[in-house]
């Protein structure tokens, strides 16, 4: 099987610091992958590189065998850590906007999810709470039929009940052809739905294993394991 995301000796330097220091990683379709690591470990940088928003300083990165660019944008559904949607738009308007923009967007699925989460389509983003805005964005991203979903901190501002619904949504939209990469600090909430976890530390892959392997080997949850490994 071809990896959907492949990194070879990937480096990314910003003006004053090195964010990624030689990442080698292959992620395969049909998996839900947790990208975990302390603050500043390079999670968002890696996701932005895969989304084609940044270019590597050196090394290579391929999405479905292609260098990130215009061609990979149609394969990748990216949830940024910050909102970028114009806040004068209503939920319905952003759905229409996405439907115009992406051929693989399922407007019906998006409308159903809005309904399930009790968000009125006529509500302006400006008047929504932080959590509700996050829900709308996640709905947009998950309503695409993409091959690689990159979710940067998708559930941070969302209440626990909605969090469960969102994780269910990720599970039910699960497609054996697609991979989902979730970067998060809420490990305890997501670890049940993950196949695989990647631990980043100082811009390098420290560990890449399945959730059950970690639990079997260390006799604790991934959340507990993370707290031990990265103890301050």
């Amino acid at each position, binding site marked *: 099987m071809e990896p959907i995301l492949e990194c070879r000796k990937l480096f990314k330097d910003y003006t004053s610091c090195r964010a990624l220091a030689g990442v080698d990683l292959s992620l395969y379709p049909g998996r839900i992958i947790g990208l975990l690591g302390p603050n500043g470990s390079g999670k968002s940088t890696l996701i932005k590189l895969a989304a084609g928003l940044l270019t590597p300083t050196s090394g290579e990165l391929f999405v479905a065998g292609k260098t990130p660019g215009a061609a990979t944008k149609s394969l990748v559904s990216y949830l940024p850590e910050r909102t970028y949607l114009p806040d004068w738009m209503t939920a319905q308007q952003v759905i229409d906007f996405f439907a115009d923009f992406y051929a693989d967007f399922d407007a019906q699925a998006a409308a159903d999810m809005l309904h399930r989460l009790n968000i009125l389509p006529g509500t302006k983003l400006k008047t929504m709470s932080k959590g509700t805005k996050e829900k709308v964005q996640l709905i947009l991203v998950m309503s695409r039929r993409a091959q690689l979903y990159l979710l940067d901190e998708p559930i941070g501002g969302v209440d626990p009940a909605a969090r469960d619904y969102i*994780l269910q949504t990720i599970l039910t939209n699960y497609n054996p052809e697609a991979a989902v990469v979730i970067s998060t600090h809420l490990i305890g909430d997501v670890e049940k739905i*993950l196949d695989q976890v990647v631990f980043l530390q100082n811009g390098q892959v420290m560990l890449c294993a399945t*959730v*059950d*392997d970690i*639990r*079997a080997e260390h006799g604790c949850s991934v959340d507990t394991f993370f707290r031990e490994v990265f103890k301050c």
Partner: protein
Amino acid sequence: MTWDLKSDRPIYLQLVEHLQLAIVSGRLPAGSRVPPVRELASQAAVNPNTMQKALQELEQSGLIQTQRTSGRIVTEDTDRIQATRDLLAKNQLDAFFEQMQRLGCTRHEILALVEKELSIV
């Protein structure tokens, strides 16, 4: 079925135990259809691949059979189901005796306590 999963043990093992219990208790009767992987995964809120692994484990132990056209069914071999039930009961008993011995109870005392409990129930 409610899936109460602990966070310190491999998920698939807990799913295996859960499904074993459903089978030996008759909630999933011999010969009945096992719900599809996705449905079970969604119920348990776990990754479908993890559920798949649990079902494969049960297939290997013979409690579940795959049929080419109609998915998975619980085995019709009631002896096997009974054997699994006996094994699970034995494990519970072993754990019970270990706990009681830790409390310093003799075999005689344990028997008396069990009989007293049974007469109440």
